[in-house]
């Protein structure tokens, strides 16, 4: 299995009150061809910004300040605008959380789907249309010919998300960045979209970077999981291990705080405090202010991802280094 995407020490910074703050701070991860990596974390942890960095679509005034983004081993950071345009679509596509706001309301959905295709490939209008309709059918849109001519407001949230997925897949990308693809959807529709993503991954061998805060959705799709907190990856590992025997205090806390893991009548586990905003990020380990296992060393230096005993996850935590 070859590596498709590899981030090494990726840092994306935004100026806050006069100084550059790394919103994504030395993030390293890799996705093998056809696999699904989930990037998990609470709001503001930098997971969406990581995805936008991969496409080099970081909104101003943010900048990628260091690190490498390698696709098939080639660093894409020095790429020119036309080169990047080829990467977007051909290699990497993205689907967004809000299908309601990411589709153009005044253009028929079919035309929006074909726009990407006709930019990337020389195909006749008729052939493009046929491919579009076939893909609509594949992603489970009923009555695809008629739906191809619909406007976004004529469709339900679930259908719009299917259109978004079709739009991302029409250029046959090898990597799909899916940013909270089911968060805005009802649970029965969410189950349908999860099923669809799973099928597409199997049939087209598309690799997926799944960005979400929902550990339930992650458990349905991911092969590997990386947990982010305040801009850094704090734990990473195979799905079974990370959800089954997590070792970072933050990951443990997140799982223990889930209502589905609580016993009725018992209070839920609480992670104390709130996520600090970037300008208040503490020195050393950024989780230490909320961590029950914090010690002196956590304030003094930054914990790095370390291998735990074989078969477990990799964790960035001093408490684990001392007492595994």
């Amino acid at each position, binding site marked *: 299995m070859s590596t498709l995407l590899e981030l090494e020490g990726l840092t994306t910074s935004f100026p806050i009150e006069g100084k550059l703050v790394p919103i994504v701070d030395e993030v390293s991860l890799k996705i093998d061809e056809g696999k699904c990596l989930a990037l998990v974390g*609470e*709001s503001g942890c930098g997971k969406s910004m990581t995805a936008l960095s991969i496409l080099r679509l970081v909104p101003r005034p943010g900048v990628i300040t260091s690190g490498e983004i390698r696709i098939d081993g080639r660093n894409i950071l020095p790429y020119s605008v036309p080169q990047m345009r080829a990467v977007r679509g051909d290699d990497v596509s993205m689907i967004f959380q809000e299908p309601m706001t990411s589709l153009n309301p005044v253009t028929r959905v079919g035309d929006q789907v074909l726009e990407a295709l006709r930019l990337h490939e020389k195909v006749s209008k008729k052939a493009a249309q046929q491919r579009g309709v076939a893909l609509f059918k594949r992603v489970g849109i*009923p009555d695809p010919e008629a739906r191809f001519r619909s406007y976004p407001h004529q469709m*339900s*949230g*679930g*259908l719009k998300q299917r259109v978004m997925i079709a739009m991302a897949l029409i250029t046959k990308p090898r990597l799909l960045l899916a940013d909270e693809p089911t968060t805005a959807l*009802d*649970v*029965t*529709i*969410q*189950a*349908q979209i*999860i*099923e669809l993503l*799973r099928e597409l991954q199997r049939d087209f061998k598309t690799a997926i970077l799944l960005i979400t*805060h*929902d*550990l*339930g*959705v*992650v*458990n*349905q799709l991911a092969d590997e999981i990386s947990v982010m907190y305040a801009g850094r990856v704090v734990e990473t590992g195979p*799905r*079974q291990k990370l*959800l*089954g025997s997590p070792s970072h205090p933050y990951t443990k*806390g*997140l*799982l223990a*705080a*889930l*209502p*589905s*893991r*609580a016993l*009725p009548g018992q*209070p*839920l*586990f*609480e*992670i104390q405090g*709130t*996520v600090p905003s970037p300008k208040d990020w503490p020195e050393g380990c950024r989780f230490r202010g909320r961590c029950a296992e914090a010690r002196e060393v956590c304030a003094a230096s930054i914990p790095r991802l370390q291998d735990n005993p074989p078969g477990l996850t990799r964790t960035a935590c001093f408490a684990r280094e001392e007492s595994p």
Partner: protein
Amino acid sequence: MSEVLLEVEDLCTWFPIKKGLLRKTVGHVRAVDGVSFRLEKGKTLALVGESGCGKTTVGRSILRLVEPRSGRVNYCGKDLLSLDERGLRPLRQEIQMIFQDPMTSLNPRMRVIDLVAEGIDNFGLATSPSEREDKVASVLKRVKMSPDQMGRFPHEFSGGQRQRIGIARALAVEPSLLICDEAVSALDVSIQAQILNLLGQLQDELGLSYLFITHDLSVVRYLADEVAVMYLGQIVEHAPVERLFTSPAHPYTQGLLEAVPSADPNTEAVRVAVLGDVPSPANPPSGCRFHTRCPQVFDRCPVEQPPVVVLPLGSARCHLLSDDGEGS
């Protein structure tokens, strides 16, 4: 035998669809169509369902923030729907609401003290400025916020803190019933746990009753005593929480539960049991409203409205469960 605090009977809230130059009413969206339930004192009833099922409208109809078309809402023996604005006023103190998005439900230009004291002022619960401040301070302590923060504005707080302010606002007038409309849905997991624990604690300390409106089934299982599942304006199943989660009777409830993804790596993958989309409530399907998406649909479903079938625990609205049904 505990006391019934709130009893809703056959509640209907329809919204007119207006068309044309003269805004003639051409139809109705039957947002709530014949909903009945009762809530006992000190208990939590969860109203669950997908978007557009009418669960929020039920909450708003009880407070008459929207006018129901028909039905009865009995609160401690008084019918809220027959009262005029004046008669309703004291009851609005008894029943308070917490909203989903604390960002948009708090006036950004008011300080915490004024936000929390708005109800106190409204109902004349404080006789002097110092009493007012004491009351705000004590209610802030109840929601585990520091009274020192009462001079600040909402934007200075995180989402979880703002939701605490929303809860403090509701508690300030000493209500007995809280209607929580998606009160924890917008919060991150770690913050959600804090707010859920707080709500549980307040219930124990103050004997509050909750009508908890949500789409999140894992939250429901954790905190509710009884659950009513809504689909297109009607309650399709109503049961004590354990029975609903361990042996759901209605095919919709079954599908809903199967669709919830679990974070336990040893569980099975979610199953797609309910296909397609929710139909429009302006034009609900004939017969059983769920028949267009039901995996167990049979010839009777599109023709005949299923009756409410009383089960050993709770009830459900499905032909498969009725005695003369063709439950094969």
